[in-house]
């Protein structure tokens, strides 16, 4: 490089030191902020790791449900990868000084691992001395010199675990296990551990260690939370896991071996006795069976006899009946024969009577007939006489006689017809009938003989039967006697057997009880926990994550503004140097030689700024942030802020790219013009009518100075854009800062103030049955301090919609009415209340967003591997902490097909201060597993967020600084650009104030535009930041309070005011002679 050029560069820098420094500083700010905030997350993690390593903090915490023996420790020590192992005795105790009772966590001091840091006093030297938690003197009245009186919080006496109950405090200390104030919960007292107490292991008389700590040298060079650490730690964990089976068996043997053997003997004995008894019983049983058989045959013989007898009786009865019948028919025959013979003789008589009558009639008729015939003959003779009267008279007389005769004949005929001649057969018939009757009579005689015989036979049969019957009764009696004998024998046997059985069963029950008891001795379970289960380390890690998330957005904006400002500055510089560039070109300098100057100018400022920015930013910002976090993590004793060159190089390159790029761009676009054009002054920017002038209504009413201001605004469009963007960005950063504060604290105010109205939750013991639970509810309802009691089922559940699955808490309140008094269910935007009905479930807002479900949609709830059901979403409710699904018991029963089982009881107190007393009473109940207090949850979250608050302050201050630099720079450019115009105005007689106003009016309007733009940018950036920073369990508020906007506006205006005030001096110094100079 030509020497003259280099010298020119140095001169240029010296001459325009203002501009040079402004680039340098803005780059410094941008780079410092970018690298600083970005480095904070890894620095926090590194500090945490250093802190842990320096105090030999455990990598693993090993617990067993039956404690750990020296042998267990030895075994762990032998696991490859494990370097050192130490056991610790620990228990929770109650300390009662005066009225107050505090729960303390008493631990044995460790020698090498988890090294304590003495804060005050000295180490224990004698027996009966102890160290206390350094926070105890602050939060309680325990001090060095206090004498602690311990009591057991459980049924087991303290002497089981501790040699003495009284300890003297000789010092206070911190231990690496606790970085923050949180000391965890306990199952005794009020359930809250206030602090820990350390005393030498010799003060304990426990048989086994409560837990063991282990470290691995392999893990020392690795950064805790790094993937490498996790991988290696998991390997070692698995190796320790590998020995647990063997250790558990050994421990089990120690615990239960003897008892088990005894029981085994007893069982063997029992088996033998059982066998013997069974043999005896079988023999007796056999004898009895024989007797039974004999009895049975006797019984069947008897039965046979009975049957025979009955048969005989039946025959006799049959014979009797037959005889009777025969007698009857005999009598009937006799009667019949009697009647028959009577009828035959009647017929005989009748026959002979009729025969006689006929014969008489016949004779009479024959006689008449002959008389007639005689007469007829006389007539005919007479007739044959000649006719004469006499004859005639004779004839007529004769005829008259004949007529009488004929009449008499017909009368005789009639009589004859009345007495017909009996048939000759009749007489024959009567004869044969008589013969037949005789035959029957002889038959009857023989029958009569037969009947008599039968009668005699029957009589003898009856006699025989009577004899048989008597013999049978005798046999029957004998059998009954034998049967009774057998029954007695049987009863004796049964009783004997039952007695023996009972004895044996009792023995067996005893054995089985013993066995069950042994089985109930659950296998000891080992838990191998890493650092990632230590609460304060976990929360610090997630805090680091939050800072990291902030670091993703904030510094980029910051950097962007810085880059833009330096870009404008460089562009302006090249524009100013137009003539010079032209001259150089005409002198024959090459393009690159000319560009070099500007590139070198920008690059040197940028590099110097970057270097300073990295050096300051990477040290100061992480230090400030970690130091801020130390307010909460008081025991984080190490702040490690190494340089992270990768980040630095990245930021410097980006900054250099922006500034060098800008200067190259404007430089090259100038150089491309011919020198002649460049050496002439740039054609002044044409004045132009602006849009507003076409609206005469407005334009006419503006004052002249307002018109000129408006024209100027639109004339310098680049400056307008830059200023609006610059101020807007600062405003946006401020809004994000304030907005984060609003969004975060709304969680506490709304969640704990408006939404959750209960004061605590009692977790029900799973062992408590329905009656015990009911009793607990009644007891709680009876407590005067408690105003509302709500049993509910609370359960973690997986909720799925589409392909997204989120874990949420399912709450099924027993009484939705009370539920709605303890939980505000409402829409976040409208504040409209939502009602829990059996139509569907209510879900919290964030869950609905994550699952993308609207009211009316449905989600699938998976209770366990086998149970999942689809439910309808009835509504969405406001909620910030955790995610919930609310459901009525009816709806649960309807969808899941079983009744909800309560697992917690929410309660509300008449006054918050009653929580200690209530908590203690509830913990005293067997049905209660634990009590969580609303107040302490609120404090925990408040503490957690408070620290973020301070970080926000850092952000706000930085944003303010940026606003300042941007405004200053832009104002400076503005004045430099218009120096001639301003000098002219001074010559024309503008007072200082008027001149300032002329400039400020524009600035003010630009600032307003910037603020307006900033409001929108800030709103957007805020919601972007919130969603980036947000974790799954918390929904931050989405709204920036109007008062925050007001603060941001006031701050921005304040910055603008300060900058303008400084500019005022610059304006006053403008030399009027400038106006006489020619245009450059």
């Amino acid at each position, binding site marked *: 490089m030509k020497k003259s050029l280099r010298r020119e560069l140095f001169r240029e820098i010296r001459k325009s030191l203002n501009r040079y420094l402004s680039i340098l500083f803005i780059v410094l700010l941008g780079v410092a902020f970018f690298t600083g905030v970005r480095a904070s997350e890894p620095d926090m993690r590194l500090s945490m790791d250093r802190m842990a390593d320096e105090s030999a903090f455990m990598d693993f915490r090993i617990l067993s449900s039956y404690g750990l023996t020296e042998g267990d420790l030895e075994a762990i020590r032998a696991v490859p990868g494990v370097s050192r192992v130490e056991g610790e005795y620990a228990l929770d105790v109650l300390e009662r000084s005066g009225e107050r009772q505090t729960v303390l966590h008493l631990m044995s001091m460790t020698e090498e691992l988890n090294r304590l840091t003495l804060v005050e006093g000295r180490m224990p030297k004698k027996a009966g001395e102890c160290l206390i938690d350094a926070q105890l003197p602050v939060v309680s009245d325990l001090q060095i010199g206090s004498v602690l009186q311990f009591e057991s919080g459980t049924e087991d006496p303290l002497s089981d675990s501790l040699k003495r109950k009284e300890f003297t405090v000789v010092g206070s200390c911190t231990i690496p296990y606790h970085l923050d104030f949180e000391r965890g919960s306990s199952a005794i007292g009020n359930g809250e551990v206030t602090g820990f107490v350390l005393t030498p292991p010799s003060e304990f008389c426990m048989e086994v260690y409560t837990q063991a700590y282990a470290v691995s040298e392999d893990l020392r060079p690795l950064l805790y939370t790094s993937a490498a650490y996790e991988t290696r730690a998991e390997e070692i964990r698995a190796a320790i896991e590998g020995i647990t089976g063997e250790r558990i068996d050994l421990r089990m043997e120690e615990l239960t071996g003897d008892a088990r053997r005894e029981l085994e003997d007893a069982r063997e004995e029992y088996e033998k006795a059982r066998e013997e008894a069974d043999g005896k019983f079988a023999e007796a049983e056999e004898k009895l069976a024989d007797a039974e058989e004999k009895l049975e045959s006797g019984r069947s013989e008897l039965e046979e006899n009975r049957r025979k007898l009955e048969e005989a009786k039946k025959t006799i009865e049959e014979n009797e009946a037959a005889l009777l019948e025969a007698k009857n028919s005999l009598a009937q025959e006799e009667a019949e024969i009697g009647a028959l013979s009577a009828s035959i003789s009647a017929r005989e008589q009748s026959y002979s009577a009729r025969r006689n009558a006929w014969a008489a009639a016949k004779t009479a008729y024959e006689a008449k007939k002959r008389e007639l015939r005689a007469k007829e003959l006389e007539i005919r003779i007479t007739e044959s006489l000649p006719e004469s009267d006499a004859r005639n008279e004779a004839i007529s007389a004769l005829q008259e006689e004949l007529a009488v005769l004929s009449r008499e004949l017909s009368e005789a005929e009639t009589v004859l017809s009345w007495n017909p001649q009996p048939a000759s057969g009749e007489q024959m018939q009567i004869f044969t009938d008589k013969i037949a009757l005789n035959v029957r009579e002889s038959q009857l005689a023989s029958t009569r003989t037969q009947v008599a015989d039968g009668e005699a036979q029957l009589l003898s049969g009856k006699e025989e039967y009577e004899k048989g019957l008597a013999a049978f009764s005798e046999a029957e009696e004998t059998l009954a006697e034998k049967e009774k004998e057998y029954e007695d024998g049987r009863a004796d046997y049964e009783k004997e057997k039952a007695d023996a059985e009972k004895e044996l069963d009792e023995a067996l029950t005893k054995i089985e009880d013993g066995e069950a008891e042994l089985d109930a001795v659950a296998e000891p379970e080992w838990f191998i926990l890493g650092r990632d289960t230590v609460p304060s380390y976990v929360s610090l890690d997630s805090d680091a994550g939050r800072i990291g998330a902030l670091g993703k957005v904030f510094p980029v904006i910051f950097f962007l503004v810085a880059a833009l400002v330096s870009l404008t500055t460089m562009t302006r510089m090249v524009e100013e140097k137009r003539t010079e560039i032209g001259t150089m070109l005409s002198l024959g300098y090459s393009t690159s030689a000319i560009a070099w100057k500007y590139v070198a100018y920008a690059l040197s400022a940028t590099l110097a700024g970057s270097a300073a920015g990295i050096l300051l930013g990477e040290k100061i910002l992480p230090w400030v942030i970690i130091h801020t976090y130390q307010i909460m993590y008081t025991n984080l004793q190490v702040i490690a802020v190494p340089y992270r060159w990768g980040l630095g190089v990245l930021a410097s390159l980006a900054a250099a790219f922006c500034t060098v790029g800008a200067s190259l761009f404007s430089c090259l676009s100038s150089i491309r013009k011919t020198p002649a054009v460049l050496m002439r002054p740039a054609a002044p920017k044409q004045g132009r009518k602006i849009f507003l002038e076409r609206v005469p209504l407005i334009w006419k009413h503006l004052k*002249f100075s307002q018109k000129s201001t408006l024209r100027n605004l639109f*004339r310098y469009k680049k400056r307008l854009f830059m200023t609006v963007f610059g101020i807007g960005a600062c405003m946006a950063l401020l809004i994000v800062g304030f907005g984060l504060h609003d969004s975060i604290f709304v969680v506490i105010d709304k969640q704990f103030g408006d939404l959750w109205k209960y004061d605590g939750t009692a977790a029900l013991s799973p062992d408590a049955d329905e009656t015990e639970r009911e009793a607990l509810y009644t007891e709680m309802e009876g407590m005067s301090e408690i105003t509302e009691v709500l049993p509910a089922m609370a359960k973690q559940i997986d909720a799925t919609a589409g392909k997204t699955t989120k874990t949420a808490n399912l709450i099924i309140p027993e009484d939705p009415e009370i539920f709605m008094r303890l939980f505000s269910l409402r829409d976040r935007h409208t504040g409209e209340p939502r009602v829990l009905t059996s139509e569907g479930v209510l879900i919290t807002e964030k869950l609905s967003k994550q699952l993308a479900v609207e009211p009316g949609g449905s989600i699938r709830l998976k209770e366990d591997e086998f149970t999942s059901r689809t439910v309808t979403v009835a509504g969405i409710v406001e909620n910030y902490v955790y995610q919930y699904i609310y459901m009525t018991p009816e709806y649960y029963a309807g969808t899941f097909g079983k009744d909800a089982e309560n697992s917690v009881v929410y309660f509300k107190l008449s006054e918050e201060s009653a929580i200690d007393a209530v908590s203690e009473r509830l913990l005293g109940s067997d049905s209660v597993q634990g009590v969580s207090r609303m107040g302490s949850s609120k404090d925990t979250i408040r503490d957690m967020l408070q620290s973020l608050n301070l970080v926000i302050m850092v952000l706000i201050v930085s944003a303010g600084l940026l606003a300042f630099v941007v405004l200053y720079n832009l104002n400076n450019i503005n004045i430099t650009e218009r120096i001639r115009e301003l000098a002219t105005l001074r010559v024309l*007689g503008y007072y200082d104030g008027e001149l300032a106003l002329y400039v400020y009016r524009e600035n003010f309007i630009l600032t307003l535009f910037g603020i307006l733009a900033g409001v929108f940018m800030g709103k957007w950036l805020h919601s972007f930041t919130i969603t980036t920073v947000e974790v799954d369990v918390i929904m931050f508020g989405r709204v920036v309070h109007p008062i925050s906007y007001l603060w941001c506006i006031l701050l921005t205006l304040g910055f603008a005011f300060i900058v303008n005030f400084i500019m005022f001096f610059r304006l006053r110094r403008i030399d009027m002679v400038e106006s006489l100079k020619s245009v450059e």
Partner: protein
Amino acid sequence: MSEFVEVRGVSKIYRMGEVKITAVDRMSFSVSKGEFVVIVGPSGAGKTTVLNILGGMDSASSGHLFVDGTDISALDARGLTRYRREDIGFVFQFYNLVQNLTALENVELAVELCRDHLDASSVLDDVGLSERKNNFPAQLSGGEQQRVSIARALAKNPKLLLCDEPTGALDYETGKAILGLLHQMSRERGMTVIVITHNSAIAEMADRVIHIRNGKVAREERNEHPLPAEDLEW
């Protein structure tokens, strides 16, 4: 105090570190009301310094300046500003118009400042720019821009019109036209006009010519018969 402008023993000494530079050395002259005066001298003679002091843009190190009976040299910064505002009209070599304002608005810009001003539009009519009132400076020629500049100075109705090389950036013909305009204005309005130039040809049109050299008045002369501007030649 008979004369309208009276410069009495005015000196201006610049200190640059150890070095003292005397730009104006005990200079004295006077100008009557309504006169057209040309102060002429070579580069470095102290013309600009005199102009600065006359215009209230700078104050004298010693001596007195009276304008219309007021001791300008006794004024403080604010007093000087008021003096510039109320009593002085200034015409620049490079016109110094505000680029973003139209011709009319540029005049109005000055008019706004003083109570006893003229109508901006009619002044522009007077300088012959009736047709171009709403044009922006960039749309005007150099002569037209200088006319606007003169109109701006006149509109304030000043006691004293100061012109710094008014033809310096203009071509021959236009320069003469501008000088003619200045002369005309001086005559018509009885305005006291002081023109500062290195061009001695202009001196011929002045009522009074003050030649300065090395910070002193070398010669002062009165023209009984000043030439009209169009007859000047250089």
